[in-house]
């Protein structure tokens, strides 16, 4: 055994130790994470089901995360909180139900972790999905016309028909969201991480 061998072996032992750390300690830290119960007795984060869960699948299948993140960075690191993207940074507990999480790595568009707090209007989201530049001039978001259908107005205007600022594009016809659009907007309406968690001091 020469000196080089002991050097290499030492480095390798360090690596094994680091792997023990990378696997063991996060597991220990995160294994017991459960949702918290807020003042109204509701578990947060809420486990997605029904339309919200279907909407999450739409979000994934359409690739929304390639332009939108869902993680609020800590105060003082970037300006996520100063921009109003969250009251607090997001934590591991916020994602206990997410298999897989959609944290995202690009902010071509704004962060959505608390979009339900910032923009609770489903009607706004539907119009924005149909034609983003109607609600947000200069936006680089693409349109999602395939999430909507055109319907002839019979007797009554459907309750969920999109209402355009300058009137319907085609007289006698309205744009109506499909179930997919409704699910996606329900999911966006569930994105609220403003509840307090023990990891973040108020």
């Amino acid at each position, binding site marked *: 055994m020469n000196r080089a061998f002991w050097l290499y072996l030492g480095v390798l032992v360090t690596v094994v130790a680091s792997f023990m750390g990378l696997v063991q300690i996060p597991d220990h830290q*995160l294994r017991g994470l459960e949702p918290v119960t807020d003042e109204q007795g509701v578990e947060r984060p809420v486990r997605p089901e029904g339309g919200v869960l279907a909407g999450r699948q739409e979000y*994934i*299948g359409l690739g929304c995360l*390639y332009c939108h993140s869902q993680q609020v960075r800590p105060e003082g690191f970037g300006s996520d909180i100063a921009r109003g993207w969250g009251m607090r940074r*997001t934590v591991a507990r916020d994602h206990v139900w997410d298999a*897989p999480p959609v944290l995202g*790595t690009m902010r071509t568009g704004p962060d959505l972790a608390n979009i339900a707090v910032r923009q609770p209007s489903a009607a706004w989201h539907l119009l924005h999905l149909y034609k983003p530049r109607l609600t947000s001039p200069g*936006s*680089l978001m693409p349109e999602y016309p395939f999430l909507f259908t055109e319907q002839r107005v019979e007797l009554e205007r459907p309750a969920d028909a999109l209402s355009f600022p300058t009137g319907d594009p085609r007289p006698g016809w309205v744009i109506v969201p499909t179930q997919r659009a409704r699910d996606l907007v329900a999911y966006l309406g569930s994105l609220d991480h403003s509840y307090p968690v023990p990891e973040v001091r108020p």
Partner: protein
Amino acid sequence: MSGVSTVPNGSADGPRQELLARAAIDRSCRAPVLLFAGSAVLWLLVGSVWALLAAVKMHTPGLLTSWEPLTFGRVRPVHLNMTIFGWASMSGIAVLLWLQARLARARLPFPNLLIAGGVVWNLALAAGVWEISAGHGTSVEWIEIPLFWALVFAAVFAVVMAASLTMFARRNVAHVYVSQWYLFGAVLWFPFLYLMANALIHAGFTRGVTAAATNWWFAHNVLGLWLTPIGLATIYYLIPKVIGAPIHSYHLSLLGFWSLALFYNWAGTHHLIGGPLPAWLVTVGIVGSVMMFVPVVTVGINHHMTMVGHFHRLADSPTLRFVVFAGMSYTVVSVQGSLTSLRSINEINHFTHYTVAHAHLGVYAFFSMAMFGALYYVLPRLTGREWSSARLIKVHFWASAAGIALYWGPLTVGGWLQGLAMNNPDVPFLEVMTGTVSWLWGRTAAGALMTVGHLVFAWLVARMLLSREPAPAVAAGPEPAGEGA
């Protein structure tokens, strides 16, 4: 003459035996390597189309929005998977099979199984990108293809691994050259990591931020334990072979390999700085990323000192141009990567186009240019033909080199400015968005230039593979006694 040796006239048996053995080895690689290489070039072309689509959609979002399979959120992952698992991985496999055959001085085993593997890989990738376009993508970055097809890829990886181990077991050389060590890293470690990540994330064994950490630990290993080792192995073999001079410091090259093998796969969590992970886990990723300075500087010094005195050869060797460009880019992108993982810098560039520019610097300026160089060296030796036009090769080189420089420069600046604006809460977000548009147009122009290079390259490859002119009887000779029995 692009490298096919002429048969010596009746001299001592030694050199002739060696020449014929090398020719026999090259010949044994022919069908599988040409299949993987040809497929890779086709995926490069299709991947470039999807790249241009994605690039244009980013600054002109109203383009082609009514057809759902072409929505940006699907075009972008389809582009990534076509270029990574199509162009990069298939050219990588072609080169690593040939290189290991050369290094072991052993013939490529079970070629028919490898050919089947290549066909299956193409089908699986086509199916995978079809699935993404149909809305069944997983939105787990770099693992968007659904689990079923990932298992098919893993099966082909296993065949490649088996071929590599077989050649090593049958090797006719005493020394294990540094490139072989790098390729072991690629063919032995990476398939297991690929399987693990797919199983852990897609089979639901992990969720939440654990799944996120697994995701980025894996995605960074595609670069660190798959593409980088293949690229470096290629450069370590081709620079000395082309210039006819050995590596400057072989000791350094081994140190560089072992330190890379140990440190690279720690770096993955640097993709999640500021995110909801335990802080220490992110710090470990940063430390691993900064430690990479050691192998990167080592490799950079080694390549440079090897080239000293031989830079004039860049004028007359296509392979050398591409491979030296790749080597220099490796140093640049890795130093940038180490710096980018520092929190103070990451605070600005995270979530911006800066990261996209960095990724392309690595996968294109380093890896793809190394693959171009390798294919310019390998294909004539497998087909026995010459490239049809020196001028077109130069067009390809300059289109790709200028293209990636134009891609990286403006997008890095634009991304940095985007990050600064985003960190200023007084700047409305829509203004942050519109501020990126001119830089994005620059990227589209650069991408168009790169695509021109790809079209030229594809033309050259097609001429070489499909040419009907008879291959000259050079280096093919009669079978040496005892072979092919």
